[in-house]
């Protein structure tokens, strides 16, 4: 969805802007500690389209990273291509610095099934061979379908299995819960999280 689109219909506010910014600030502190412990001085930060990029932009500024921010579009790598068809808006992935032998911080907004991260790792490895990958997510919720766990989590969300959690942005960043929208656009949720 585009940044100017209003928050999803039939949803209720789950966390307001202040709560989201607080969570991101906490994430940046945890990340800093983690990177220092690993000796990863000049990490590459990469956000996953679209919400992950918004979160990454804030983390990137808070951490004062010097390398430019990268972003990944996972549409070409989704595992539900054969079920729902192709996502109409694919922005090219943009990795301004080569990922070979670098410490990468992958950032996404919501982690649920783990399929988006699986796809993102595939894209990443088609660009090169990083030294390590850390995963930071703004919101973590149950329902994992793949063995993928985050290193840094902003907040934990306890939602019913059918419920939808969506980040609206880029400014302000707010989290919304509700039933997923009908039709094909619902597919973005299916592969995401």
């Amino acid at each position, binding site marked *: 969805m585009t940044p100017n689109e209003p928050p999803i219909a039939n949803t209720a506010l789950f966390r307001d802007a202040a709560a989201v910014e607080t969570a991101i600030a906490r994430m940046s502190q945890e990340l800093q500690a983690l990177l220092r412990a690993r000796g990863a001085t000049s990490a590459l930060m990469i956000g996953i389209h679209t919400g992950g990029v918004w979160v990454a932009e804030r983390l990137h500024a808070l951490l004062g990273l010097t390398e430019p921010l990268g972003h990944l579009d996972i549409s070409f*790598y989704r595992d539900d291509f*054969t079920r729902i*068809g192709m996502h109409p808006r694919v922005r090219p992935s*943009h990795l301004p610095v080569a990922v070979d032998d670098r410490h990468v911080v992958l950032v996404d907004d919501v982690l649920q099934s783990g399929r988006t991260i699986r796809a993102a790792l595939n894209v990443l490895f088609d660009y090169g061979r990083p030294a390590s990958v850390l995963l930071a997510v703004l919101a973590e919720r149950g329902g994992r379908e793949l063995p993928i766990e985050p290193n840094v989590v902003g907040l934990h969300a306890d939602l019913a299995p059918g419920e939808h959690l969506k980040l609206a942005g880029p400014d302000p960043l707010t989290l919304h819960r509700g039933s997923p929208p009908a039709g094909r656009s619902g597919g973005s949720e299916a592969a995401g999280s």
Partner: protein
Amino acid sequence: MIPNSPSQPAQAAALQLDADGNLKHFLTLDGLDRALLTDILDRAEGFLGVAQQAVKKVPLCRGKIIANLFFETSTRTRTTFELAAKRLSADVLNLNISTSATAKGETLLDTLRNLEAMHVDMFVVRHADSGAAHFIATHAAPSVAVINAGDGCYAHPTQAMLDMFTIRAHKGGFAGLTVAIIGDILHSRVARSQITALNTLGVAEVRVIGPSTLIPARAQQALGVRVFHDLRAGLRGVDVIILLRLQHERMTGGFLPSEHEYFHLFGLTEKRLSLAAPDVIVMHPGPINRGVEMDSSVADGERSVILEQVSNGLAVRMAVMSMCISTQNLWLRAAGETAPAEAADA
């Protein structure tokens, strides 16, 4: 008593689109609306990024078999389709039919049935006969997608779309543009598809420039173009110049007296180029006959975008192929068949 036959665009739309308006086959630009053409261009933008990857492949068509059915040899076009298919992770079969099956008296339909039995998912067709892609799409099994890589003098829609991609990249859009197409319009499938695309995308004016022998009958009404026989008048103020390749057969066929006279009257030189808008771009589908269609100084000059066209072609073909495969996947699921396991585990 006798109902009017649906128009060519209406029939082409019915053949190419599924009930939800998704692209099923890509045979011609006839009948495809501006939103769909824009969608193809937008998607192609996304595929440009794949060339930046270390592994220049995306798994969209994993497990799919794409057959290049070339009844007319064209190494260049076949190579770009093959590369596009491989970058989508499809398996590719290259078949040069002109030398095998038809020589043994096998009909086109026999050839199709044989390939369908090998579970081919997509045919990329190049054929010397106008309407061949329509024919194959009409008679192919419903699970097979057909992409026209050029049929006779009728259509070459992927070439036209890559030209549109290049124009949009340089001009930002199509509104208000005046585009001149110079040369052998009569025999050009590329020109027919370009004209349809340009008019659908809403340019201000499409001009065709050439001697009367190379302009088709009733071009203005049939194609929606303005006809010029004087290159200087036709070039005045144009934003985009598209040159067409002039085949040597046009001399022996009596369409032109000589290449020399053609260049004298219709060849693009620096001086003539100055009649166009200052930021004009010059395009050519290649390969160029230097000194016939244009001067080398124009071909290699700063207004020329000829080499860009080649790299854009890959992204456009990936976009179109993945769209048709996507529609096919939806169809397969609706038909109750399981999508190939290889694709689902991605």
